[in-house]
């Protein structure tokens, strides 16, 4: 049975933990709003980009000279997985859910006899993947110094990926990130970026307008495809950012609530033991008086 002093100390300690988690929750809430605004602001660009590229891809896609970024290298032996996670923990299952999805994919690909290479964005994913897939890590992008993710960051990652593609290091690239659905729900998502696929853009692009292209369809497409990759990575980064804050917010909300429950329990225990001590003292006094 813990002494009164011990209980008191524990209550104090849980109380300060609750203060910290509460503060983290509020910070996450503020950051979440900013992240959501950023994701919102980026949407028109990404949507338009997708629509135009979807239309172009349809027009050029089947021809002989289609760019490799669109048509692929003709093989799918080497897969590059770009795993995007957070730089920091304490955000519930956010990081592990992405890593789990990536792990499953790795097993699947290895089972099918493919070669897997991994590029990690964010420290947490690298730490988790290094344990059993350390030999497959070929690079890491560190965003821990970046306060606010900008297009420039996405562009850097994209040029890294594209450089490796041009050097023939892989045939298919897939990005892994958490899509932001709501504060309580983030969906781990795998999205193929090379060769480009435009399944969702099809309907939008097919508006029936016949465009002129300057300089030419192929040249425009060649110019746009790398930008499309950067845009997709940028969107993923923003979604990930919003998801991370959302996940942290609900994780910290839970933690705050648990701390509250624990404080209640400890307080009851504390009161009971105090009562027991008093009762004990009374019994001692009474039995002492009776003995006289």
């Amino acid at each position: 049975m813990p002494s009164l002093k011990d209980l008191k100390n524990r209550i104090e300690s849980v109380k300060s933990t609750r203060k910290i988690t509460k503060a983290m929750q509020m910070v996450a809430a503020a950051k979440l709003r900013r992240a959501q605004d950023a994701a919102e602001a980026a949407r028109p660009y990404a949507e338009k980009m997708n629509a135009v590229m979807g239309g172009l891809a349809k027009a050029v896609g089947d021809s002989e000279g289609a760019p490799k970024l669109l048509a692929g290298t003709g093989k799918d032996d080497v897969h590059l997985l770009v795993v995007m996670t957070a730089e920091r923990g304490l955000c519930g299952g956010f990081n592990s859910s992405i890593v789990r999805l990536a792990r499953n994919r790795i097993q699947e690909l290895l089972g099918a006899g493919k070669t897997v290479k991994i590029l990690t964005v964010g420290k947490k994913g690298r730490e988790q993947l290094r344990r059993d897939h350390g030999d497959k890590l070929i690079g890491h992008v560190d965003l821990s110094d970046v306060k606010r993710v900008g297009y420039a960051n996405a562009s850097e990652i994209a040029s890294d990926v594209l450089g490796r593609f041009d050097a023939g290091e892989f045939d298919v690239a897939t990005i892994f990130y958490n899509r932001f659905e709501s504060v309580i729900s983030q969906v781990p998502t795998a999205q193929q970026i090379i060769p480009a696929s435009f399944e969702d853009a099809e309907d939008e692009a097919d508006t029936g307008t016949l465009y002129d292209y300057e300089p030419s369809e192929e040249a425009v497409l060649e110019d746009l495809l790398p930008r499309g990759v950067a845009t997709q990575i940028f969107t993923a980064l923003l979604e990930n950012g919003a998801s991370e804050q959302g996940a942290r917010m609900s994780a910290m909300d839970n933690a705050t609530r648990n701390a509250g429950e624990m404080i209640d329990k400890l307080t009851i225990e504390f009161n009971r033991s105090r009562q027991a001590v008093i009762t004990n003292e009374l019994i001692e006094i009474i039995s002492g008086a009776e003995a006289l």
Partner: protein
Amino acid sequence: MATMQFDLVSPERRLASMEVTEVQIPGADGDLTAMSDHAPLITTLRPGVLKVSGPQGEKSFFVTGGFADIAGPSATILAERAMPVDEVTQEIMDELVDEGVKKRDEARKGSVDGAADAVAKFLGDLVAVGDEINLPVRSRVPAP
């Protein structure tokens, strides 16, 4: 005069959305001006100054990289970097040019045909824009 819907978006935000009568676009193959009911056209952009004029007066934007989608009643410009001309500073231009020079030197070393030419053209366009908006950057470009 008939107006058209004009939107200028960069990956990070929507810079402008308004009714205009004409848009002057620095296309990859040369400048062009689009007015309402222009034939549908998609063109890539070179670094340059985009000018719009309409009921709300004239506005100029500095843009690099991206494309313009012109279709009848609307013109949408997607630019990788875009900002109002008066917000462009010497530092921004210098940074862009230095980046370009670095890329050019890298491309020269590489064996990809045309890559160096493309970057050189990009640099040339940048220098031209610099002159146009009075932020000269010519001196930063070393002779090849």
